[in-house]
């Protein structure tokens, strides 16, 4: 590890160890420092210990042993407040905003004083917006904003405190590219003025692009460290996964699904939730990708097809038979929807894995379709754990104890069990580590190869290109273009989704 003098480092971890009460060794002798005015990337698979390290860094958890040094002096932060006062601002993966308050009230939440909104708040907020070159209505209620804008509000909140160190945990996960660029520009600008950043992300291209230094964690230890310029994606990926990753293989477009049966046919599908006149059809063996910016209607389209949006109009046909707009009817017709928000829409967090896996398929695992057979449920779950490589100690574990990748696999298992013919995936690779991502990709491919019809909505164009056979571009609730994924590029799709025609 390169030697840097104490004075240069704003925050330093010295031999930090953390063991959770259940015996999990989350951190094992971690030492590294963040230089003043630098953007420090922290990468690692889910479960590598990044979040634990961050929590210790911002005072939300305390280490079992080791030292934290702030500007060279050992400190002991018992509460997040201590760290905040010292000059650490944290932005976590899940956005801790108050939905009932307005944007400006959220951003200024930490402001002291007795008034709900200090007189200077609006001026400060405008300055902040100008500095970031990002504008959002300060008086809009956070509950009314889409996910991407909420994330931006959280970023504004972290920056509003004028901290010396800003910790960002996966800040861009739900951001569209333009918003992402705003964030990056602001980070660079603030770093140039002396603010240090600890930047945690699964998006390796972003990390390589944005950061000055990189630390790679695996299994609670630091396995690689250095200036970002010395890293390539392959070295990073190997450090994270501890094995050589094969790049995403070109998708199986050569296959002759042009001649296979049309399984799903959607005609003139509209919805008050922002869809207009959607027509599409998917054949067996096809993977159709949905590209589009945030709010373009990707998720809305999937929910309309699945019938969870009961206000839809138009027709959805499976193998020629119309499907009424309800999830139950869709499931009976052989449609499965793997939703975007795993813990909000997909799984019951405070319930065991096996109960989650069998929930959508329960009558079939029951005696007389009424009395669930625990033995059958258990063996289905164990099969799923084996075939999907879910890392758990027991099917009895609660879903809330799982990492993102493992929770996603549980959700996959739940829908694979229903033996659906048509799979709708909403952001299947969102917030999961590289290894789990590979598994998910392999799984989706194998579904198509076994003759299922698949639709994927994904904000990562590269993933979408690698996976899909055909890509539909959505813009403001309409399909504006259709491309064979072999004959298009990230660049073209980006232009199309931002509304530039004939690119």
């Amino acid at each position, binding site marked *: 590890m390169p030697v840097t003098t104490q004075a240069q480092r704003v925050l330093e971890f010295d031999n930090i160890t953390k063991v*959770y009460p*259940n015996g*999990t*060794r*989350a951190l094992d002798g971690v030492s590294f420092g963040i230089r003043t005015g630098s953007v420090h990337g922290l990468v690692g698979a889910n*479960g*590598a*210990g*990044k*979040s*634990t390290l961050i929590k210790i860094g911002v005072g939300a958890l305390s280490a079992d042993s080791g030292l934290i040094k702030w500007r060279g002096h050992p400190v002991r932060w018992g509460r997040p407040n201590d760290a905040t006062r010292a000059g650490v601002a944290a932005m976590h*993966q899940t956005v801790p905003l108050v939905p009932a308050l307005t944007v400006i009230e959220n951003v200024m939440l930490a402001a002291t004083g007795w008034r709900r909104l200090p007189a200077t708040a609006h001026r400060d907020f405008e300055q902040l917006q100008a500095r970031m070159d990002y504008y959002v209505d300060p008086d809009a209620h956070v509950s009314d904003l889409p996910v991407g804008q909420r994330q931006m509000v959280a970023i504004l909140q972290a920056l509003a405190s004028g901290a010396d160190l800003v910790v960002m945990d996966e800040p861009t996960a739900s951001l569209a590219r333009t918003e992402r660029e705003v964030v990056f520009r602001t980070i660079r600008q603030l770093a140039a003025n002396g603010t240090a950043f600890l930047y945690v992300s699964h998006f390796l291209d972003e990390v390589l692009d944005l950061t000055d230094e990189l630390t790679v964690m695996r*299994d*609670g230890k630091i396995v690689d460290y250095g200036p970002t310029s010395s890293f390539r994606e392959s070295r990073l990926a190997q450090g994270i996964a501890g094995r050589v990753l094969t790049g995403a293989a070109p998708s199986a477009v050569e296959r002759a699904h042009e001649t296979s049966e049309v399984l799903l046919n959607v005609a003139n599908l509209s919805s008050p939730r922002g869809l207009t006149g959607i027509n599409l059809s998917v054949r067996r063996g096809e993977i159709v990708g949905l590209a589009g910016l945030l709010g373009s209607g990707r998720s809305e389209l999937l929910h309309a097809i699945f019938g969870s949006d009961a206000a839809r109009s138009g027709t959805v046909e499976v193998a020629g038979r119309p499907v009424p707009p309800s*999830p*139950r009817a869709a*499931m009976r017709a052989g449609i499965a*929807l793997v939703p975007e928000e795993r813990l*909000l*829409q*997909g*799984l*019951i967090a*405070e*319930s*065991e894995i*096996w*109960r989650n896996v069998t*929930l*959508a398929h*329960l009558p079939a695992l029951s005696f007389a379709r009424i*009395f*669930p057979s*625990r*033995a059958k*449920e258990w*063996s289905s779950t*164990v099969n799923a*754990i*084996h*075939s*999907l*490589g*879910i*890392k*758990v*100690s*027991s*099917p*009895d*574990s*609660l879903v*809330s*104890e799982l*990492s993102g990748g*493992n929770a996603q696999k549980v959700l996959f298992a739940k829908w*694979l069990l229903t033996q659906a013919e048509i799979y709708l995936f909403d952001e299947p690779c969102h917030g999961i580590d590289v290894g789990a991502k590979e598994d998910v990709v*392999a*799984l989706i491919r*194998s579904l198509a190869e076994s003759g299922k019809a698949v639709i994927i909505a994904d904000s990562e164009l590269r993933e979408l290109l690698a996976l899909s056979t055909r890509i539909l571009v959505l813009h403001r609730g309409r399909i504006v273009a259709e491309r064979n994924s072999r004959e298009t590029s990230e660049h073209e799709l980006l232009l199309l989704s931002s509304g530039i025609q004939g690119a």
Partner: protein
Amino acid sequence: MSVDIQLSRATSPRLHPQSMRRRLLSAARPGNAGIVYALAILVAVFTISSAAKGGSNYLSAVNIGNVLDQSTSAGILVPFMTVVLISGRFDLSVGSVGGFAAVVSLDVVDQYGIWAAAVLAVGCGLGFGLINGVIVEYLKVNPFVVTLGTMTAVSGLTLVVTGGNSVMATQPGAIAQMNALSSAFLTANLTLILAIVVLAYALLLAFRRTRTDGAGNWTPVLVAAAAGAALAVVAFTVPVTVHWTRPVWYMLLLTLVVWVVLRFTVVGRRLYAVGGNPEAARLSGIAVRRYRLVAFMLSGAAAGFVGLLFAARLSAVNPDALSGLELTVIAGAILGGTSLFGGSGSVLLSLVGTVFLYAIADGFNILNLGSNYQDLIQGMILIAAAATYTAKARTRRTTTRAADKPPVMSAGAETAVTAEGSPADPISEDSAGNR
């Protein structure tokens, strides 16, 4: 699995679900069955102190029968209230709906007989439940507000119907019918019931063995069958009989039925899912609104039945009969560990919680402590219980929900969780026990 692909890093979790014995042990842990131990301690304290004061025996068969009998109004409601709470809803209207049903049934019983009164009482309850459910689920008004409204409106309706006067049955025939329904005692041989339960369990085990490949271990079947037979012999030689009023048996039977449905059926599993995460349940094809609507209707119907029994017991009621009962019922469910946020709870423990409240009241009577202190003590116990459950949930969360937690499962850990289900970790057992 429709797609059988082998991905990397497969792990080897335990291959069999927890054995019945282990599940029972886990359910009996103080963390899961705290209210049962609390009741046992309470009974012990009252028994000893009443004996020390030279009072009547708290633990006598008669007193136990009394406590159970006093619990019946709340005790018949509590399983259904628990269902409503598990589904993530709330019902404040059961007390006044019960009062209305009591008045209505006394109005008609003279002329049309007990069956008409029963149908009308339960029907009224069902109707009010339907109204609650439709307004909450389909007009999406907050359940607290809606049932607070129906509670007030229905007690007003009772006043309108009665003109503020008490209502009574006068026909001797009708009164006799009502007494038969509510006050008559029913003697049962407890040992025989136990024997039947054990034999039924043996049968179930045997049935399971034949359905799996037949290679299963038959020892537990034989043990259960032998135990059942032995109990049957005891039942006829030295019978342990209990002498309880009919409502006590209704209460036990209804609780048992609801428990079986929740514990062993698809409907029960889905109900927990509906309360645990309504959106996930909806996207799993579960008719969330219908489940909650039916929960309201059952709760209303139970209130109607309780009203009928209450009317039948006294053959006369005041217009404010059963008012305030809903709070006792909800308190009982909370004491039993039912979450107000939905998704967890046990009807058996809720019933124990309810009986606990009446056991305190009865103990105060026997010890002549005066009822002034009773509400104070009950309120403090309720808060203490809720605090205990919350604290327990919090410890569970902080010890296990560290995000980014490395997988527990690794080569070394495998050995710890193989074979006959050695405990994977205490947390999952906790939650299993709460079902």
